[in-house]
Structures are given as C-alpha cells and as structure tokens.
C-alpha cells in the first residue's frame, strides 16, 4: 500500500515552503485551483518539489512539474512517483 499524498498535505507543504497564500483559496483548496491563482510562482513550485523529493525519497520529473498548472495535476505527479517508489521496494 503506497503512501498517497492528499490535497491538504500538499497545501501544508506549500504553505511551509512558499508562505501563506494571500488568496484564501488554499484553505478550501480544490484540485482545479492553479498555482498562479494562489500567487505561487515557479520558484515556489521548485522549492515545494525539492521538499517533497527530500521528505519522501522520490524524484519528480522536472518538465512535468513545470507543466502542472493545477494542484490536482501536480498531486497526480507526486502520487505517481510515490506509487513507483513503493513498487520498487
């Protein structure tokens, strides 16, 4: 059983890495909300990705990371990587 990341987990990591969003949308985060809507730029995504990779021992595909516009798309990438790493062990 792989440890899947939930939306609220991602919101917490984002907050910790890139600061509280000025847009309250993060507290009611939906999968179709974009990073841009929340005021997070590419460096925020980079910092968040580094943290997730470090904490979970996974590597996310760099290009895919920057193509992910919404929290849902990004979460799918993370969970695919988590599932891969679980299968590998």
């Amino acid at each position, binding site marked *: 059983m792989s440890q899947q990341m939930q939306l609220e987990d991602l919101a917490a990591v984002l907050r910790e*890495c*890139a*600061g*509280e*969003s*000025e847009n309250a949308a993060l507290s009611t985060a939906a999968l179709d909300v974009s990073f841009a809507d929340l*005021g*997070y730029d590419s*460096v925020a995504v*980079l*910092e968040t990705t*580094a943290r997730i*990779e*470090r904490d979970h021992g996974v590597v996310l595909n760099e290009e895919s990371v920057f193509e992910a516009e919404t929290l849902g798309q990004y979460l799918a990438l993370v969970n695919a990587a988590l599932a891969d790493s679980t299968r590998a062990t």
Partner: protein
Amino acid sequence: MSADASQSVITGIGVAAPNGLSVKAWWNAVLRSESGIRRIGRFDPDRYPARLAGEIRDFVDADHIPGRLLPQTDRVTRLSLAVAREAIDDAGVDLEQLPRYAAGVSTASSAGGFEFGQRELQALWSKGGQYVSAYQSFAWFYAVNTGQISIGHDLRGPSGVLVTEQAGGLDAVAQARRRLRRGSELMITGGVDSALCPWGWTAHLAGGRLSTGDDPTRAYLPFSADASGEVVGEGGALLVLERAAAARARGARVYGAFAGYAATFDPPPGRGGTPQLARAVELALADAAMTPDQVDVVFADAAGDRAADRAEAEALTRLFGARGVPVTAPKTMTGRLSAGGASLDLAAALLALRDQVVPPTVNVTEPADDCPVDLVTGRPRPLRLRAALVLARGRGGFNAAAIVRAVP
C-alpha cells in the same frame, strides 16, 4: 530662488533606524538625543572582539510583510519593503494612476541578504545541497530590495542597485535623479542595509574599523580626540523622488530639492595623491549652482577614526573655513549603516530644513584640536536652514556629496 520645474524634489520619506522605526519615531528620538546603540541582542556577542551595534529591536516581520514573502526574504528586504511602504504612503501618491513604465526603483546595498545566506550556507554544509532553499537564488542578491519593491508596487520603470558602501545612500538617489531627467516620473530611492548576523559580523570585524569598547556612550566618537573606531548598525531611509512640476501638479507636500550631487574616487592607498572628498563637495556645489556660504549645515561622514576624521575636518576647513559651518553626525545615535547611512542623513537633512533645527551629535563633548569643526553636540540647535550638505565615504575610495535645498 524658486524651484525649477525640472528639478527633482523629495515628496515622501520612510525610515527604519535603531532609535526609531518610522519617520516620526526616529526623528523624535533624534531630537531627544536618544541612541539606539547597545550590546548586540540578535546573537551572543561574547566571543567576538566587538559587541556593540545599532540594532532595530521593534520590527515584527509579520506585521509588515505578507506571508507569501516571508520564506523568500532576508531581513534587509523586509525592512526595505516596510520603509518603501511608509515613503509611498507619506508621498500620498496613487502609483496606479501613473503610466505603466513611468516609475522605478533605485536603491543602494552593500552586502545583500546576509542573514538568509548564512542560514542556507549552514544548511548546505551541515545537511547537503537538497536542504538549501530555492529562494537563496535571489534572496541574498544586492538588487533584491529594488526587485521586491518593484514587484510589490508594480513599478516597471528603469530600476537598479548601487554598490558603493556608505556612499551608496547618496549615489542611488543621484541615479534616481538621472532617471527622472531621462523621462521617468517617479522613483523610490535610497538605501536600507543590515548584516547583523554572525556571518555579517565576521565581515564587519574583518574590515578592521569596529570599536571594541563595551560602553555605548564611548564607543563611537567621531571628531573626538578619543575616537577609537566605528559602531555599525542596520536600517536607513527610502525617499520618493519626483520632478518638481509633477509634484506641484498633484499638490504634493515637498520636503526639499535634491539640488546638487557629485561623486569622486580616492587614489589607491600608498601611491601618493590626496583624498577627493573636498573635490566631491566642490563639484556638488557647482552642480547646485551654489557657493559654500549658502550651505547652512553639514551632515558629516563621521568615520570615528582619527586619521579619517582629520581628513574630513581638513576638507571642511578648506571649503568653509575653520568652524565655518555647523557640522553634525546624528549617526552617533544609530551607528554607521553601510548603504543606509547616507540615505538616513538625507532624511535628517530634509527634516532639519522642515523644522529649522540641526539634529545633534551625541556622546562627543568637543571635537579634537586637529578637527576644527563647529560640531553640534549634545542637543539640537535651532537655526535658519535653507540648504544642507550630506557627505559619505565608502570603503574602497568612494566619496559622495549631496545638497538638499528648501523649496519655497
């Protein structure tokens, strides 16, 4: 003398200083001769040969900085953003009404975001590269304060940073004036600096000029026979600079005009030649179309080093005569603020013009015999003031002189 419509005037001021956070708090403290120099509280200074600094103690980051910016900003950037906000509010200007590329930012910096850099270097060497913040890529950088102010207020005009140590606080404002002359309508300009973490402290110590005394009232005594070095601090000032015509058109309150400026460079040590500070003053006076007798007060660089104090006193004597003009160093209450110091002196000069009073030099009772300057010591001196000269010398040979003048 009426204000030339094309000249650059100051319409807004923001300040963060060890003896007061905000223009009002700082200026009130200055006129009460209250110093912000104390034993360092940010880290334990016991193991270091110098232990005094001018720290800003009442800045609560989250009160001034949006949450989104906290992970990506050094203390110097947070201070800069708060000071820029105060200056813009003070100017009463609606930046959104300006054309899209009409306003820019010109600041001075001497070391960038040192505290942020220290934390990330510690993470790198103790835990590894994957623990270093992606924000380190820009958070340390000299231009970061200009950048964050520009982003925060959507100021898309020509912007930049000057790195000339203490002289930067004047050089940046001169660069802003150039921008106004080339068509920009408004500039946020000046300097706020801070490097009071252990890594920054090590750099200050390596500079070799820090006073090692423990008595805050005796450590930094510019022009005194007992001068034994400098105390450094953090903070500075940012100004809103506009063309006089634009300021008048919107009915802005004007503090004064940035009427004259020049920069010179000293010859390398040990190769002969003479210091060029006096030359900078002569050129600044020529730029302002003024004569020395029209200068009512001088805000000195005030190094606190015997040789450097003598050199400054000599320059002043040559231009104004012995004890020929009131001289002051309110930085005796803050310590020397690197790129922020001369900008804070500009702010002090403008408020001196407003209130018709020379702010005091504290702790120095009288200048040394070989520094024949009319130093305003102990308490403020009420005086009729029309123009003030601000001097700054930056490590490495930078000299700058600026003149601010009352606008009728």
